[in-house]
């Protein structure tokens, strides 16, 4: 019964979304306040209905109701509670419902907190948002119905893919979707602005929190995914340049560009149509990611079941939204009034260069990801574009960008003095140079480029600190005054410094893992030892243990450094009988400067086991840096400017279009 209620609620949500799509748009066009007023309540109702549908699915997983085909396919009564819940979105149909749930949540948030938006803009935004919901609800109802029943109901489910039974991965999809879908909000704002024919400072200010929220969710989602890949896939890598990973990276890079260009649009009234274009592209790339994962054109860890009908449906959605919005952009964007021409050396100029470099980096990733697929679709040779391609294209562009990052915040608007900015960065440059020498001193036998990478990381962190120091007059004024200034500094300034500094820490981690990895692979009998980068690894014993829904072969590996005991790790090979699969669990010891990473392999004859071990220098910094970046985003999101909102012209409130903005 509950399942049927859920199914009914989902179909009802579709009907509500259709109303929410049509009426407010018509109302905004005719300046009909009644039609426009439907938007808010409809958005809330739509969210409530999708939530009900999602809750019904979750309930079926929680009570292991295997008459629901989805639960039968993806759950098992012996599964731990957390994976019963995450099983809801650990499959195609359920994850689509989560996708639409987040979409509806964002719409509901505009309905709740968008009271200060002009009535027509709010109506159009919610209408565009609803059109996306209509497309995806149609997709769910017609091609991916999650509420299919089985009769008779099986006694037991077939379980969830063990690779997905993991704490980080359980919450990786919700964050990732919040990021993808968050860009639907900036997309809706962009399309609504194009329809309105007006983009001004307050528009940019309204869009920024959504761009920020989407960006920080996507940052967390990507970081979690890469952390999972690191400790689960068993070879200590954190990024594979797998097409599906790239599909999440591309909206992130464009979203980062959007975050920066929206500042220019807000503060200076420039780069307006560029900001709109970025908002459209960010969501287009999110949709592209959805298409790649769900259409079956890709096969990877992330890809869901293949069904040609679904692929074609999503391709249709993709073409409609991307093509439609770009056509609208081509038609309407030239009508936007641009103002605020600025000097090349200025804050705006720096942000524009940042945007161009980010766009170039996205283009390189886009090409490397889609070219092999295109070639295959045209019956050309089957090729793979490996990590080397991306290291040779993406990395140099990003390095240029990273070198420039600390300059941006120190340049003034309109016209800036680059020499003054450079002088303020002297200390940061000095620190970076010292860090490089220290890195050479410690790791003289590593790749020669790596210490330069460390210098770049220190440059970013110290550059972010210099900016705060400059703004608080640290060392130039009495400490009390500096503290007072620090307290009064807008949260957005702290957020930016944290995001840029976090980026530096992540860069250090990436450099460390890539350049200074030590590894060994040996066959050991219990009691035997091996050496790795100054550590002694001893396989003490290998035994069996039972988990809640798996049985594991566990190795006990003792790690010593000289005479000193460091840690005892327990790498495992888990067998999941319900799913008939195996899963490797690496044993990891971290001291925050480096990880010792041990994987237990197969039996190698005569009572020996294959043991593979790595010393990954600075590995935890990748994710610590990512989390600091996300924290910076979160702090920025609480900035007073975004909470209070822009001062709004009273005439706009009345729904009358002002003759000219500002």
């Amino acid at each position, binding site marked *: 019964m509950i399942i049927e209620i859920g199914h009914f609620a989902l179909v009802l949500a579709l009907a509500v979304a259709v109303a929410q799509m049509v009426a407010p748009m018509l109302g905004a066009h005719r300046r009909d306040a009644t039609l426009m007023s439907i938007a808010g309540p409809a958005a809330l109702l739509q969210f409530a209905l999708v939530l009900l549908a999602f809750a019904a699915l979750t309930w079926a997983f929680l009570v292991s109701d295997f008459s629901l085909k989805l639960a039968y396919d993806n759950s098992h009564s012996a599964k731990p509670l957390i994976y019963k819940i995450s099983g809801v979105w650990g499959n195609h149909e359920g994850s689509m419902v989560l996708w639409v749930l987040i979409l509806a949540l964002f719409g509901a948030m505009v309905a709740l907190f968008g009271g200060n938006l002009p009535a027509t803009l709010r109506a159009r935004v919610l209408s565009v948002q609803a059109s996306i919901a209509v497309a995806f609800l149609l997709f769910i109802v017609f091609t991916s119905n999650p509420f299919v029943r089985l009769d008779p109901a099986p006694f037991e489910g077939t379980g969830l893919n063990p690779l997905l039974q993991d704490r980080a991965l359980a919450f990786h999809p919700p964050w990732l979707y919040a990021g993808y879908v968050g860009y639907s909000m900036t997309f809706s704002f962009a399309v609504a602005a194009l329809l309105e024919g007006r983009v001004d400072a307050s528009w940019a200010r309204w869009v920024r929190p959504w761009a920020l929220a989407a960006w920080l969710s996507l940052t967390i989602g990507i970081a979690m995914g890469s952390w999972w890949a690191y400790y689960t896939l068993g070879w200590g*890598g954190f990024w594979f340049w797998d097409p599906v990973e790239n599909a999440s990276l591309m909206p992130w890079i464009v979203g980062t560009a959007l975050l920066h260009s929206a500042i220019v649009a807000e503060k200076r009234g420039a780069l307006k149509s560029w900001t709109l274009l970025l908002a459209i592209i960010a969501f287009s790339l999110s949709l592209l990611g959805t298409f790649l994962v769900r259409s079956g054109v890709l096969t990877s860890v992330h890809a869901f079941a*293949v069904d040609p009908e679904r692929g074609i449906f999503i391709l249709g959605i993709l073409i409609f939204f991307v093509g439609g919005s770009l056509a609208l952009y081509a038609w309407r964007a030239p009508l936007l009034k641009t103002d605020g021409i600025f000097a090349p050396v200025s804050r705006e100029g720096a942000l524009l260069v940042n945007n161009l470099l980010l766009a170039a980096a996205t283009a390189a990733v886009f090409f490397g990801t889609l070219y092999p697929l295109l070639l295959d679709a045209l019956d050309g040779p089957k090729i793979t574009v490996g990590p080397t391609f991306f290291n040779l294209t993406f990395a140099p562009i990003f390095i240029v960008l990273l070198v420039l990052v600390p300059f941006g915040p120190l340049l003034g608007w309109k016209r800036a003095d680059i020499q003054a900015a450079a002088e303020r960065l002297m200390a940061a440059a000095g620190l970076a140079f010292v860090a490089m020498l220290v890195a050479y001193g410690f790791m003289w036998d590593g790749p020669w480029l790596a210490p330069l990478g460390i210098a770049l990381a220190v440059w970013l962190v110290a550059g972010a600190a210099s900016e705060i120091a400059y703004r608080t007059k640290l060392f130039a004024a009495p400490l009390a005054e500096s503290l007072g200034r620090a307290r009064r500094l807008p949260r957005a300034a702290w957020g930016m410094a944290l995001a840029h500094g976090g980026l530096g820490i992540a860069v250090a981690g990436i450099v460390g893992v890539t350049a200074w990895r030590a590894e060994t692979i040996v066959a050991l009998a219990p009691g035997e030892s091996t050496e790795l980068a100054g550590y002694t690894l001893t396989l003490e014993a290998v035994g069996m243990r039972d988990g809640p829904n798996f049985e594991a072969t566990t190795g006990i590996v003792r790690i010593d450094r000289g005479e000193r005991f460091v840690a005892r790790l327990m790498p495992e090979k888990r067998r999941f009988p319900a799913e008939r699969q195996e899963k490797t669990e690496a044993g990891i010891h971290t001291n925050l400067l480096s990880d010792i990473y041990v994987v237990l392999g197969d039996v190698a004859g005569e009572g020996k086991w294959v043991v593979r071990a790595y010393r990954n220098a600075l590995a935890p910094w990748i994710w610590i840096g990512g989390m600091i970046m996300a924290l910076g985003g979160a702090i920025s999101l609480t900035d007073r400017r975004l909470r209070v909102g822009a001062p709004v012209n009273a005439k706009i409130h009345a729904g009358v279009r002002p003759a000219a903005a500002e």
Partner: protein
Amino acid sequence: MTRKQRRAAFIAIGLAILALAVGLVLYAMRDNIVFFHSPSDVVEREVAPGQRIRLGGLVEAGSVETLADGAARFAVTDMVETIRVTYRGILPDLFREGQGVVAEGVLLEDGSFAADTVLAKHDETYMPSEVVDALKRTGNWQGEGAEASHAETYGQGAYP
């Protein structure tokens, strides 16, 4: 600076970055593209030793052994030709005899293959699409289990 000069400066910066991106892509495309080959392709087209390729097919039944130094040895077959593969690393969790596999690495002078990456399927029914196509070409495609589901898992190691 006049308005015109400023605009020219921005266009110049934009073009420089575009040129940088295009140049890097073209450079990286020259020798970082890896082609997929079935064992028959390797024999017929005489893939040169040292060239980096992806080799795909079925893991020959009974061919998998773990050597004393921890390396794994197995054979990849498309039912016509068979290539021996060595892989220094831990095989992916779902690597199994008689099932589809894709190995990336280089062909050695003696005709065997040194893999540094091994991709295997993720569940009972999945087979890499390249392998399916390769088997179809040699007429050994059985059709069962063609429906793909969750997917490849990654294993990566250093080849000798």
